């Protein structure tokens, strides 16, 4: 069977549009709410990235940190996260889910245990922020054996030779970081420039799907819509924080935001 991630890209291509990927932190603003959010946005989203909150994140900006700390404070544990995924998959069997987090959480769970649990709960891909290539070679191989995509990150600082090597080893989907920034930074490079870099990378192996992420908001998403896929994270986390502040329901607010995002790339 085709990995649901690849199926999602295929479907978006057929509809002649970029795939929409969202990032929300598991357990934000609560275990229940985060599951509700996933369910409510799943119709408009092609691939759901679910963040595994960590309390010493070295690549996350303030919005995602706020979400992560909120979730940790609420007592979220790794097993709760798998449960959220599993519960979601009960009613959305084919909607792809990617877990995104830091390697220590995987290490403490045990690599093999973690992957088995990914399989049994329905995780389709992994992004491990602090496990770059070539350090990730072994783990990526293990993922492959379990039919889980290990998604490589590519950055504006990645040299050309390195890009080629990473892409050669990569699974069908990769993630291009739009600019030098933590997540949620203001887009400090023009969308045109980002696309120029993106196209260069895309040329190395056009068969691999490449999504763009970091700094994408309602304002900028439309200008990047020629990419295979676009990831919005911090803007959604911010929406959750805002909803809580104004005592509104994050589920409905996030749902509205996602619909807007989707409309910009159609």
């Amino acid at each position, binding site marked *: 069977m085709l990995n649901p991630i690849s199926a999602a890209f295929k479907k978006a291509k057929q509809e002649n549009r970029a795939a929409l990927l969202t990032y929300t932190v598991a357990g934000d603003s609560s275990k229940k709410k985060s599951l509700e959010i996933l369910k409510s946005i799943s119709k408009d989203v092609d691939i759901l990235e679910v963040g595994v909150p*960590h*309390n*010493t*994140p*070295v*690549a*996350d*900006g303030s919005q995602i*940190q706020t979400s992560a*700390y909120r979730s*940790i404070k609420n007592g979220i*544990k*790794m097993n709760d996260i798998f449960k959220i995924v599993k519960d979601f998959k009960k009613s959305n069997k084919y909607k792809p889910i990617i877990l995104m987090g*830091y*390697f*220590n*959480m*995987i*290490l*403490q*769970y045990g690599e093999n245990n973690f992957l088995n649990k990914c399989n049994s709960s329905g995780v389709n891909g992994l992004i491990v*922020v*602090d*496990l*770059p*290539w*070539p*350090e990730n070679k072994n783990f990526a191989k293990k993922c492959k054996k379990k039919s889980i995509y290990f998604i*490589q*990150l*590519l*950055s*504006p*600082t*990645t*040299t050309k030779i*390195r890009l080629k090597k990473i892409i050669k080893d990569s699974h069908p989907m990769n993630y291009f*970081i739009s600019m*030098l*920034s*933590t997540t949620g*930074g203001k887009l400090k490079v023009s969308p045109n420039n980002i696309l120029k870099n993106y196209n260069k990378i895309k040329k190395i192996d056009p068969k691999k799907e490449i999504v763009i992420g970091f700094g994408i908001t309602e304002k900028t998403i439309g200008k990047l819509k020629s990419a295979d896929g676009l990831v919005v994270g911090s803007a959604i986390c911010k929406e959750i924080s805002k909803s809580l502040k104004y005592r509104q329901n994050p589920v409905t607010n996030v749902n509205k935001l996602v619909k807007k995002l989707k409309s910009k790339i159609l």
Partner: protein
Amino acid sequence: MKLKKKIPLIDQVSKSGFWGNKFGGNFVPETLKKPIEDLEIQFNKLKKDKKFISERNRYFKNWIGSPTRFIKLEKLTNHIGGAQIWSKVVSDANGGAHKVYNATVHCLLAKRSGKKIICGDTGAGYAGKMLSMAAKKFGLKCKIFMGAKDIARQQPNVKAIKKNGAEVIPVYSGSQTLVDAVSECMRFWVANCDTTAMCVGSTVGPAIFVRICGWSTSQISRELKVQLIDEFGSVPKKLKLYNCVGGGSSSFGFWNEFMDYDKKQCEFIGVEAGGPAKSKKHAAPLTYGSKIGILHGAAQYVNQDSDGQIEETESISAGLDYPGVSPLHCFLKDTKRARYTAASDEEALNAFKTVTKYEELRPSLEPSHAFSVAIKEAKRLSKDTIVVVNSCGDAYKDRGILEKRLGKKYVKSN
């Protein structure tokens, strides 16, 4: 796992940055791969460059002021009545602590690579103070990340950082201490690595930062070895080197030149922060058997829960208040070259009282942890044993805490 002789420990590292295939490494976001590789290439080249070494030595000598004193604590020795107690007064160094060696080297490297800005973390405020001082000296703009809790408890150093023209960026996340400052500093570097150099304040972080810092603070033991030979004619037959361990930069620097000696002749004792006697929290991952995990880009023994969340620490000493520890020390622990133990807040305060009662020396709360263990053990050691404690910081920065815990008479005005 084996410690090799004749190769500096900072160079006993695998290509991917591991000591003993287990500790260290480069668990970093993709964006930092290139700047880290650039720094590795630069450092590996310059460390063999005679001109660079003599430039470094010139700054160490004329600007930092080397050597720092090596003195016998006569009255303390008499009071204790066991081994001879000596101190290497590293707080003599310009700025008042060992953090100046690493800061100076990082600024020299940044200058050569054409960077205009340097950022760094700080806990006790010394790493920040020294970096701001060196940055000013070398004409670099400087940003210092510091936990809000540490800003409140280490005001004298915060003032010094600002006076040197650096920007202090308070960090409000997590426990608002060193661990959060390092995270925030790394995040800043991720977003600005094209223009900005980063200085990690201890022998922690991605492997290259561990190596640069250890290389820099090793000045301490280079000086000490000469001073020991001057004093005793040779390296003493029974030598014990006591040092506090936070990230581990002062202790590593204090021991490095003696690494190849048999530990029966030259023993290393690292003292971690045990935290308040009544609290379960501590900052002593080596002493209390914490599991290996990843913190700030490196695999190390680190306080964490079963999920891998880093645990909050607690210590009276901001400089030691860190949940992890250098991969170098993890390696020294596993190879049994060094021995690690902890002192509580109260024990450190008592040691401070004892040392200041008998001597002119005023060690800060970090080295007071080392003094606590040294004093306790010296009692039972023979008179021909030479105990040396690295007094790597001055108590001036701790005046607020000392006044609160011990009363006004323990605080001096300068």
